């Protein structure tokens, strides 16, 4: 039976939810569910988990380009069929995991993965993303699909990961490093809690298309959308519209989300802000937000060299200065922000000083600091 556009409700199935996960478990996973005893990373990207039953599962993790075609997925399937009895999984950071139940199957799988390249030369399946390395960059849509981005996503991620490639495939960092990208302040992803975060920012207030406002927006919702109450109702040439107090605008874009007649994208205004020191895990120190490192870097397509260089500088400074087990934020907390800016040679500017609602809690209320 096929869909019949004339009777869309015929045979309709709804609310069935996702298929049950268990049917997708490879046998070794199903059999050892809840019985795993320990794990070890054999080499970057390759894990073994050992069960109480003595069973082992070997995982080969490869960097996933989240934006992938069906051709690419089919190639992934081909590999899984060939080596993994037709099973695979994706991680919470969009890497792909191929699992086998026998050590002997690991090398052939890896060889196969390594052999596959795009015509233009890039690797299809870089192996890595484990342990004290830099795993995949979590990211969002950018110019590929969304309506509010201040930056692209996939392009910047590609450029940054090209630069950090060896650290995706290696584990020389003091601890795991999580990088994330969000293309606007909505932050679709955990960029607010990442070791290093790449954020798209606008720097111009919305301009108002007065002729359209009352047609395409609910004015009260647009007004309520503004965190700083910068938007007021107004009349322009007898049209109901809104007015923005630019002085109070901090370019969050939330008004545009509610009102398409308030666009704020612009080549000169938009660009990248970099954030550092966030973390999610509860290991050692508590989860914490990413803090502003660089307020603004212009958009530099196609390869965003300044952004890439700055991230590289932060990573290398961290790598050479942090103690083992110290996440980026833990490292900074130990050395102090004054040292962070010094060592990374980043400029400390007005933008770094919080002036939003909880600002007071970020000020230094002690004489303790370093020269």
């Amino acid at each position, binding site marked *: 039976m096929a869909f019949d556009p004339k009777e869309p409700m015929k045979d309709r199935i709804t609310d069935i939810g996702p298929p049950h996960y268990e049917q997708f478990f490879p046998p070794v996973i199903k059999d050892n569910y809840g019985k795993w005893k320990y794990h070890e990373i054999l080499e970057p990207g390759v894990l073994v988990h050992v069960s109480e039953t003595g069973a082992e599962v070997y995982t080969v993790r490869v960097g996933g380009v989240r934006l992938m075609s069906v051709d690419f997925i089919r190639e992934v399937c081909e590999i899984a069929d060939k080596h993994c009895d037709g099973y695979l999984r994706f991680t919470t950071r969009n890497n792909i995991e191929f699992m086998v139940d026998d050590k002997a199957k690991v090398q052939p799988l890896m060889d196969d993965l390594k052999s596959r390249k795009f015509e233009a030369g890039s690797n299809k399946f870089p192996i890595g993303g484990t342990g004290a390395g830099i795993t995949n960059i979590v990211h969002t849509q950018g110019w590929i699909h969304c309506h509010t981005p201040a930056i692209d996503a996939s392009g910047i991620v590609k450029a940054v990961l090209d630069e950090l490639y060896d650290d995706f495939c290696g584990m020389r960092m003091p601890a795991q490093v999580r990088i994330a990208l969000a293309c606007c302040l909505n932050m679709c992803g955990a960029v607010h809690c990442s070791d290093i975060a790449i954020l798209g920012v606008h720097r111009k207030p919305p301009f108002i298309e007065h002729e359209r406002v009352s047609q395409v927006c609910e004015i009260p919702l647009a007004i309520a959308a503004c965190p700083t109450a910068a938007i007021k109702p107004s009349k322009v040439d007898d049209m109901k519209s809104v007015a923005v107090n630019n002085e109070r605008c901090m370019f969050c874009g939330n008004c545009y989300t509610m009102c398409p007649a308030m666009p704020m994208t612009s080549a000169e205004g938009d660009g990248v802000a970099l954030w550092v020191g966030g973390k999610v895990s*509860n290991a050692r120190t508590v989860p914490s937000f990413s803090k502003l490192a660089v307020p603004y870097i212009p958009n530099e397509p196609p390869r965003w060299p300044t952004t890439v260089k700055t991230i590289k500088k932060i990573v290398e400074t961290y790598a050479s200065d942090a103690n083992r087990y110290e996440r980026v934020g833990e490292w900074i907390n130990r050395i102090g922000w004054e040292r962070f800016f010094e060592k990374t040679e980043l400029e400390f500017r007005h933008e770094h000083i919080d002036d939003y609602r909880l600002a007071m809690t970020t000020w230094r209320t002690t004489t303790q600091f370093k020269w």
Partner: protein
Amino acid sequence: MALKHKTPLLDELEKGPWPSFVSDVKQIAERKPMCEDLLGLLEQSYVDKEGHWKHGGIVGVLGYGGGVIGRYCDRPDLFPEVAHFHTMRVNQPSSKFYTTDVLKGLCDIWEKRGSGLTNMHGSTGDIILLGTVTDELEPIFYELTHDMNMDLGGSGSNMRTPSCCLGKARCEWSCLDTQAITNDITHEFQDELHRPAFPYKFKFKTSGCPNDCVAAIARADCSIIGTWRDKIRIDQEAVGAYAAGELAPNGNSFGTGPSTLDVQKEVCDLCPTRCMEWDGKTLKIWDEDCTRCMHCINVMPRALRPGTDTGATILCGGKAPILEGAQLSSVIIPFMKMEEPYEEFKDFVDKMWDWWMEEGKNRERLGETIQRLGLRNFLNATEIEPDPRMINTPRYNPYIFYDPADVPGGWEIDGKAFRKRHQA
């Protein structure tokens, strides 16, 4: 084959070792005009340094309020194939194990009815089918439900697609059946997922232990994180083996292979509560002071394991910045056994949602409603007793809303009697 649009800027992204999405899209663009125009449009964005998508339009499948993100490009004159380019969110199976069968099935549908491009996966966890036209939405939905036994995920002011870490499936530390919980609530709350009736979006995420590999605490309105109430299990011999350099520290995270672990410095001194003692032979953990941060277990996976009286800490309010600034989830229920059919948990969810739907303003996430009305209010509504585990520190401002029920005479002062005692 030469594509319709020249893409000199994008071509730069074919270089370098990391897999190139440009190479991938170019390949499929040879047979998919939609992808061809998508490349053209993206190149245009690279030239302009501005996105080229219009503000989202409302499209969807019948009977559902979410699951489809409408999208139209703002230069249909130049890129007509992506004039419509809607996204469909397909609810992933919990923790994202797949058979190649199911993936191939999806690919076939999407090859036929969509752009052939996907995101594996979206940030919330869905399979993202990226780019199709309005007319294809219903057929795709039909084929998904009929042929693939799959359903859409969430978008809009509803419950969003829950997600979880892989938990007990392949992790020795999981204190929860993360998939079971995720699958259960997803099915239990299908109506809440598909038919937006909330003030704003609502997300559940479940991690098996405090390492929180699904970033639940940062990204979920309700974060369910595994933990234990008893003691860390210690294998003293294995501790010795780590100290002696017979094992690789931290599951070989540093690629050192077996190498000496300075248990004092690398484990005990980094324990946040300093509740461990190591005399070179025996490791003693004062479990009553342990805050289950996982560090020692992470470093010595073959020697230490979480306890066996396991359950979840339930935290609420996590979210991104819009509107009032980002929040991390806060402890609401320090410990809850999580056993099928999760009645206790669902009771809590019901009370939580009732309150939020009653009190929450339009586009106000749960965490913001709690901020605005106070944690006390939320705890009252969910019938939870205050507990010091909910806070880092008691209040340090003296602005206390004393309950008039605790005060003799409540809020009343007898003004006349007062003025008898005190002349004005």
